[in-house]
């Protein structure tokens, strides 16, 4: 039965990129992008604010200090150094290291006369003409950020020179930005520490949403599976008005329509079967009376005139055929109604075949050859096995050509019964249909000696035994039917 080779229900493992995973990942991605963007923007704004404030404070403070510078030119080295130290102390927001450059003169508030942090660019900008308000630059040296400020000293109302005329003396202040950097780093850490819990929190609605989507989908899958297994009354609980509820309702409607059609089909099929069964049944009673008197007709035909005798013999023969047909129809109806039962017995297979042949008087060695392996004990329904062998041999004698060979042997835990003939074989277009009911290989031969049900009944009987029967042509001519029944 086709239903039987349905694969066993597989345990479905969660797939690596199932719907749930994808939904959750999408959620997390959105949350991550949101968190990340917010954090990045906040960070940038805060960082700029911090740095700018520091810078502005430092630059303004430095410029003011520079304006209070009291230096006589030419430069008095020690005096300048003292001034620088004073300025350095008053550094805002933190102490600076102050350097002064005037020509080749390098003076500083520290031990070293010149700083390695100052860049040539800053020097160039500080000494550029018109650059009297000073400039600053952020420099990173050895991983430490520094703010460097350059302010040129200018003449104030001096000797008629215009104000803000550079004196050539440039003061540089170097301030460590490590503290600000630490503040900014702390902000990054805070942003990160805020984003991770946010992502974790986002997991909850992600899972909830995934569940909300997946539950109907899963229910749909279960329902489809259940329908596939023939439970057509399966319905899904549809509530709400979203697309999934629509899907569920559509599914329910389709299932209901399918159930209606299938029920109607089944009813029609059952009616057809019951009809065949009832008709056969009703035919039996009149046939019983007719068949009981056919011998009377046959015996007396000899004493009748030739036309009447022919008519009488014809009726007698046809009654016999009709009886066989009705019997076969009843048998098929029983198979269709699954009312056919197997009454098994342990029997000797070769002996069974031998009896079948003897009882049908198929003993002429010119027509029937046997190769029966003795001693194979099989659990068979003797009556049904007899029908199988008799049908196959009868079929071979009727449609094939003698000698018919019947072989019985054991192969791989199965009892194999093989009936081969020496006839013309079965045409290729007929081969797939030989077990069909009432199938006629030659359409012109509308009626043959058999009922047209013999091979169909044979197949049903073999299936009842859990076995198989196949028809094939032998390479050297003739057809061969092979029955395999598990021992």
């Amino acid at each position, binding site marked *: 039965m086709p239903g039987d080779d349905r694969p066993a229900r597989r345990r479905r493992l969660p797939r690596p990129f199932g719907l749930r995973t994808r939904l959750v990942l999408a959620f997390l991605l959105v949350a991550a992008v949101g968190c990340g963007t917010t954090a990045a923007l906040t960070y940038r704004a805060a960082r700029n604010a911090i740095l700018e404030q520091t810078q502005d404070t430092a630059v303004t403070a430095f410029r003011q200090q520079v304006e209070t510078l009291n230096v006589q030119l030419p430069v008095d080295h020690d005096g300048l150094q003292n001034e620088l130290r004073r300025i350095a102390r008053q550094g805002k927001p933190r102490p600076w290291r102050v350097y002064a450059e005037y020509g080749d003169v390098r003076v500083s508030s520290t031990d070293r006369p010149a700083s390695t942090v100052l860049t040539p660019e800053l020097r160039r900008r500080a000494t550029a003409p018109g650059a009297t308000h000073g400039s600053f630059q952020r420099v990173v040296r050895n991983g430490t950020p520094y703010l460097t400020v350059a302010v040129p000293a200018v003449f104030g109302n001096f000797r008629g020179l215009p104000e803000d005329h550079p004196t050539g003396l440039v003061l540089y202040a170097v301030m460590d930005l490590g503290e600000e950097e630490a503040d900014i780093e702390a902000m990054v850490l805070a942003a990160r520490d805020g984003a991770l819990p946010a992502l974790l929190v986002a997991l909850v609605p992600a899972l909830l949403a995934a569940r909300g989507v997946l539950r109907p989908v899963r229910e749909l899958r279960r329902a489809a599976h259940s329908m596939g297994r023939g439970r057509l009354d399966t319905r899904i609980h549809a509530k709400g008005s979203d697309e999934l509820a629509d899907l569920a309702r559509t599914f329910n409607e389709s299932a209901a329509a399918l159930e209606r059609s299938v029920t109607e089909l089944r009813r029609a099929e059952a009616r057809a079967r019951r009809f065949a069964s009832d008709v056969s049944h009703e035919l039996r009673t*009149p046939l019983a*009376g007719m068949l009981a*008197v056919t011998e009377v007709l046959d015996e007396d035909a000899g004493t009748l005139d030739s036309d009447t005798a022919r008519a009488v013999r014809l009726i007698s023969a046809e009654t*016999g055929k009709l009886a066989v047909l009705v019997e076969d129809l009843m048998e098929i109806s029983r198979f269709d109604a699954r009312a056919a039962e197997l009454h098994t017995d342990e029997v000797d297979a070769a002996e069974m075949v031998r009896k079948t042949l003897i009882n049908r008087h198929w003993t002429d060695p010119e027509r029937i050859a046997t190769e029966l392996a003795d001693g194979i004990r099989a659990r068979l329904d*003797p009556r049904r096995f007899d029908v199988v062998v008799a049908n196959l041999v009868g079929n071979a004698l009727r449609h094939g050509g003698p000698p018919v060979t019947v072989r019985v042997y054991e192969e791989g835990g199965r009892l194999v019964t093989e009936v081969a003939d020496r006839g013309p074989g079965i045409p290729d277009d007929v081969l797939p249909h030989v077990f069909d009911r009432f199938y006629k290989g030659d359409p012109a031969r509308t009626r043959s000696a058999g009922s047209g049900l013999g091979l169909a009944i044979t197949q049903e009987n073999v299936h009842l035994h859990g076995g198989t029967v196949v028809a094939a042509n032998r390479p050297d001519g003739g057809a061969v039917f092979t029955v395999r029944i598990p021992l």
Partner: protein
Amino acid sequence: MPRVLLIEDDPSVREGVELGLRRRGHEVRTAATGEAGLAVLREFRPDLLLLDLMLPGMNGVQVCRRVRDTSQLPIIMLTARGDDFDVVVGLEAGADDYIVKPARTEVIEARIRAVLRRIEDPGGTRPAVEFHGELAVDRAGLTVAKNGERIALAPSELKLLLHLSAAPEQVFSRQQLLEHVWEHSFHGDARLVDACVRRLRNKIEDTPGDPRYIQTLRGFGYRFGPL
């Protein structure tokens, strides 16, 4: 020639079978209903009853039970239904064999002869009466007694018991029993054997559920004893 009573409600079957059997030399009486058949039975005293299962009023199974209550008359069921249920019900009621309609007269007659045939004694020179436990089997008189009381056995039951007890402890398959007791040489029905064994056990065993005389060998068949 055996005298046959045919109880059959369908006129054409009744006439057809009657005609066929009469041509073969049987003395045949017919009845259209179970009640009429039981009335004819007392007066006609047939050797065998051919009984349709489906009868108006009192059905075949009821007629069969009624006949079995009082006599060991051989009964063959004539049934249009070869379906398992009907066959088994008929056999349980005490029929010795059944024929599925339609059947040729030669088949009907062969079955009649098989049921009526007396069992040949395979032992040959055995004593006429054998004792098996509490059972006394008289092969010559064809009677069976338990604890001195005679047991009424239908022909098929008697034949089965005689066959099994002739070779105690030997296992017979259902197929072998069908051939020897019912003479069904092919497409025999194992249900005949099973139903008959059940009926026989009900009559001769102390506890039919735990048989002592007729034992089952699962997958092989039946044997008599060991006691």
